[in-house]
């Protein structure tokens, strides 16, 4: 081994140690939140961590395979409702285990049936899965058990929920980190880029997709299960709320999928926003979320973390002003004083402007 290589590996080891240490301090600080923050602050943090787990779990599957899953609320709801149904029969932790099992089986069945064929079928199916389960559960509860909603009273307070969710968040980040460094993760990325190529290089496309879908669903189900004791009364309409799926997708793409920490940037602003808006102006919240969503799809395909990275890269570059400060000013004046010409009418001008605003994706070489 040459001296420089040895030096490099030493630096890398030190950087890894520093990063691990910093993350450990961060997690410890977060774990201390219940004793530092107010009740309101803790409730907010529970929401943040809950959505963080859901979003990172979503990105495990959808970020790599590029298949938009709209089934988050289905798994979240299954976890929550399983706990609500079994809480009088089993100890709390046993209900969590059962919930994970149910979520995994559901994901396996859905995955095997739909992912095998085409991505499109999967998206369609995930779109209505949560609605369908809600319908079935309402029917079951009304006609078979004659109850509408269940009470969850267990000695599992907000602090306990928070600590468990935090542990789950560490686990899901670890899973994402490992995935990015494994052959399996690489295979998934290839599938996301081009399925035909993936098949050609010998990746078992169907099995890989189903496997990561099941893993991601297990995290989501457990999150739902852990959140169940937070609400003393749960009915199917509450557990299977389609807004959960929508918020998770928007948080993930707002943060950006190319980085593991991207979701953090998406979850925090949207949770704060939803706290502010949802109680007072719930319908404005829906409109606003939709608009934000479209803005991201059109103008920020790499999300906030992409913006941050670009900004960071630009800060590193030297400032270029070849014609001094007056140069840009003269340019702006020249542009303003140009006569208005509309060769293709107002509609043409709008189209041209729109085309210029839209980010161009470089042509495939």
């Amino acid at each position, binding site marked *: 081994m040459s001296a420089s290589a040895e030096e490099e590996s030493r630096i890398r080891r030190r950087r890894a140690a520093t990063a691990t240490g910093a993350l450990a301090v961060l997690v410890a600080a977060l774990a201390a939140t219940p004793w530092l923050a107010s009740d309101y602050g803790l409730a907010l943090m529970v929401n943040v961590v809950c959505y963080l787990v859901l979003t990172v779990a979503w990105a495990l599957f959808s970020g790599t395979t*590029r*298949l*938009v899953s*709209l089934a988050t609320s289905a798994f979240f709801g299954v976890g929550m409702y399983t706990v609500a149904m079994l809480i009088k029969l089993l100890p709390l932790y046993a209900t969590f285990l059962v919930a994970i099992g149910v979520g995994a089986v559901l994901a396996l069945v859905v995955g095997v*049936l*739909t992912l095998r*064929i085409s*991505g*499109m*079928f999967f*998206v*369609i*199916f995930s*779109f*209505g*899965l949560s*609605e*369908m389960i809600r*319908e*079935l559960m*309402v*029917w079951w509860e009304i*006609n078979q058990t004659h109850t509408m909603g269940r009470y969850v009273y267990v000695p599992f307070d907000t602090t306990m929920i928070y600590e468990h969710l935090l542990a789950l968040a560490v686990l899901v980040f670890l899973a994402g980190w490992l995935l990015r460094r494994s052959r399996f993760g690489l295979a998934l990325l290839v599938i996301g880029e*081009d*399925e035909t190529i993936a098949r050609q290089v010998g990746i078992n496309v169907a099995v890989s997709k189903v496997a990561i879908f099941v893993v991601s669903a297990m995290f989501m189900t457990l999150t739902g299960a852990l959140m169940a004791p937070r609400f003393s009364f749960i009915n199917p309409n509450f557990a299977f709320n*389609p807004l959960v799926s*929508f918020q998770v*997708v*928007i948080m993930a*793409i707002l943060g950006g999928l190319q980085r593991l920490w991207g979701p953090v940037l998406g979850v925090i602003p949207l949770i704060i926003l939803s706290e502010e808006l949802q109680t007072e102006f719930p*319908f*404005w*919240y*829906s*409109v*606003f*979320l*939709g*608009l*934000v*969503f*479209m803005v991201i*799809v*059109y103008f920020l395909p790499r999300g906030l973390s992409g913006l941050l990275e670009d900004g960071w890269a630009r800060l590193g570059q030297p400032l270029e002003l070849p014609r001094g400060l007056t140069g840009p000013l003269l340019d702006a004046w020249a542009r303003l004083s140009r006569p208005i010409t509309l060769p293709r009418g107002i509609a043409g001008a709008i*189209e041209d402007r*729109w*085309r210029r605003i*839209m*980010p*161009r*994706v470089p042509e*495939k070489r």
Partner: protein
Amino acid sequence: MSAAEVILGGVILGGLYALVAIGFNLQFGMARIVNLAYGEFLMAAAFAAFWMFTLFRINPIAGMLLSVPVSFGANWLVYRLLMTPLVRRARTRQQLEGETILATFGLLFVLRGAATLGFTANNRFYDYLGEPLHIFGYTFAANRVLAFGLACVFAAVIWLVLNHTRLGTALRALAIDPVGAELVGIDVRGLCGLAFASGGGLVAAAGTLVSTFLTFNPAIGIEFTMKALVVVIMGGIGNIGGSLIAGVLLGVAEALCSYFVDSGLTLAVAYALFLIVLVVRPRGLFGTPST
């Protein structure tokens, strides 16, 4: 109620599903856009019919003369302004599907939220042709029969245009192979816009018909989008006749389910049918295996 009456009721409902699905098929099969906000235009047309009827006493069928062209234009604008940039920047079909799903998903929430803001989340209903009609000894509500009849007329017009005009031939070529269509001199971009807008026009007609016999609120759109998706997959993407048959099939299955089991399980029925088709005939009921 006899079994025959239940099945005929299902066929009548299925005719409407078929109409919704044919419009969706124009957007998905021809223009290649998965429009998750599709049902929101149905909801908007239903509200338009409702307000025109309750405020100005305008006959809903006459009201279509206004709502269908407006929805046609709105969908054309959606295609030109919102979808064209995505079509242009997508490298593969898969990528285009992903991006259009995301964009129209956002549009869905904007439209639904705006409708809730404007019209509140209350259930709406108005009474138009509610009297019973006796056909072959069975009794049906007149508005349902009218809706079924008009749905048949619209479907027939679309079928005639697609199969017996030059424009229709070009559209069918587009559904089969967009690249090949461009090579033989078909204006792909213009026709995609036309197909997308026509889908929007059809869904406005369907929305008006739905509003005459069902209660509705700003949240109904998504249910119709899901059913349209299921019907289109069952009947085959780009296959208009397939959508017709699959739509009627779904209507009958739903009617049987609400008669024998429970009327709250309609979506479960749609998904059960979808799953059966997925497992048994993944290329749709009338699909042929291709390479």
